[in-house]
């Protein structure tokens, strides 16, 4: 219904009020508090800052958070694609029930998820018992952290792939089949490239969430120095010692990682929009 092309003029009332309140509230709740990280890090000076964030224990925590979040995101990408495929393409009893439960990790408090997985995988737990027989340790190990992060990140992947998969024109697949492609070839060569941007977006979201995750991880991780201490926990322990500058320094690096992930994601989404238009 755009009769007049070009820029639409703003004719509705309330721009000043709504914009003013938005900027004020955003500054008060988000921008000013977040800027405290910078104000507490800058007076430290470059040398002590580097010294803090490259201390062996801190570096180990970054490495741990980064690698466990990465493994979990990769696992989520696979299971998320599988789940989205099954939910969109197949019809079976209980499908809608499973579909609804995909959101559970969003809705369930992280601490509850944490104590559940810690109990489930403890050497006397329902699943931990079996793993203990095979001498696989899950709690107090990076594997446990990955398990918790898989749970947390799972819905991000499913919910970004689902709408894309629903809109795929099945005619394309039919055409591929008519031309003699097998089902697997159709999937690999036609569907997967089409789904790839959404898959990447979803798993990046899961990854970014995983790096900062705290509640679901600390119960299962055991928090052993140099081994299973995640980066957010390092911030926590520096705070407990009232080392505010140190806590800010560790937080700053973590923030920069998360923000660059999101910027990367924006770039991917722009590329995705150009590709499919």
């Amino acid at each position: 219904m755009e009769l007049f092309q070009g820029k639409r003029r703003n004719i509705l009332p309330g721009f000043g009020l709504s914009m003013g309140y938005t900027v004020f509230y955003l500054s008060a709740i988000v921008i000013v508090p977040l800027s405290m990280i910078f104000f507490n890090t800058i007076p430290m000076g470059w040398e002590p800052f580097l010294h803090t964030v490259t201390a062996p224990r801190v570096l180990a925590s970054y490495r741990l958070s980064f690698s466990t979040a990465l493994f979990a995101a990769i696992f989520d990408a696979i299971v998320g694609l599988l789940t989205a495929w099954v939910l969109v393409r197949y019809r079976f009893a209980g499908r809608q029930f499973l579909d609804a439960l995909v959101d559970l990790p969003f809705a369930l408090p992280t601490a509850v998820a944490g104590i559940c997985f810690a109990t489930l995988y403890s050497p006397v737990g329902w699943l931990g018992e079996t793993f203990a027989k095979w001498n696989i340790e899950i709690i107090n190990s990076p594997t446990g952290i990955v398990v918790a992060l898989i749970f947390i990140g799972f819905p991000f992947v499913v919910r970004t792939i689902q709408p894309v998969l629903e809109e795929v024109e099945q005619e394309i697949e039919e055409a591929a089949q008519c031309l003699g492609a097998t089902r697997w070839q159709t999937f690999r060569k036609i569907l997967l490239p089409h789904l790839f941007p959404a898959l990447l977006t979803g798993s990046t979201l899961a990854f970014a969430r995983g790096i900062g995750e705290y509640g679901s991880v600390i119960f299962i991780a055991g928090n052993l120095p140099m081994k299973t201490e995640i980066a957010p926990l390092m911030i926590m322990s520096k705070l407990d010692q009232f080392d505010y500058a140190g806590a800010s320094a560790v937080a700053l690096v973590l923030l920069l990682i998360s923000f660059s992930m999101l910027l990367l994601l924006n770039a991917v989404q722009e590329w995705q929009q150009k590709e499919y238009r």
Partner: protein
Amino acid sequence: MLKQPTPESAPIIKKRISDPLPVQMALIGLTLLFFITFIFLPLGLVFAQAFSKGWEYYLESIREPYALEAVKLTLTTVAIVVPLNALFGVTAAWAITKFNFRGKAALKTLLDLPFAVSPVIAGLIFVLLVGSRTPFGSWLGEQGIKIIFSTPGIVIATLFVTFPFVARELIPLMEAQGRDEEEAALTLGARGWQIFGKITLPNIRWGLLYGMILCSARSIGEFGAVSVVSGHIRGQTNTIPLHVEILYSEYNFAASFSVASILVFLALLTVGVKVTLEKQFQKNSFHH
């Protein structure tokens, strides 16, 4: 986000190309296996542990004074946080979707910022801003105002963490609806608040409700951020998730899971409400 109805989702029966039955069975089986280990077993475990010492103990655990105090604090937090963030969400969505201005994309990115911040950092920034060891915090302390390690601290940290929920739900919805209806009302002589109350609000009510439910769910369950600013004083600054943590770390598993079962129940309720609202949403837009 609530699924928005598309013309495609109208009941047109399409013949689907399908995979061979064995492939279908195998893939459904794998999905089920994942759901069992990652969703059903944890849920089952909560209730098994909660009732491991019987009904009596379960009821006692959720009715003891500290648990009740935790519930009260959590409800207070929700009652303050959700209206404030809902008001903000509606205002921000109005500004962003009803007007053209420079820097809109940047503003939208800034709104999502709290999602990219670790919960622990969300708590940390308020300790740095108003903690008792900061200049501003010690000045507040002299005036007798305590923020960190008390209820206001829990409220502002929760405000930060749940900041984007309502706005995020409303912006895509209002963008899809456009401005034509509001502009038509304007030309017919309606005033600003009339337009908002009679046109916009009814149009966005399900999205707004869902945003508020997500915001409440996160406010109830937030752990990391609240854990930093709370100080863990039993009966005073313990929210429900913090109470669960304390009981768990005291090896009182039955009580811990009993209190956790309330949170699980609320989470299942949130998921159920989403499904119901989506159905409502689909129905409404077809009657349009």
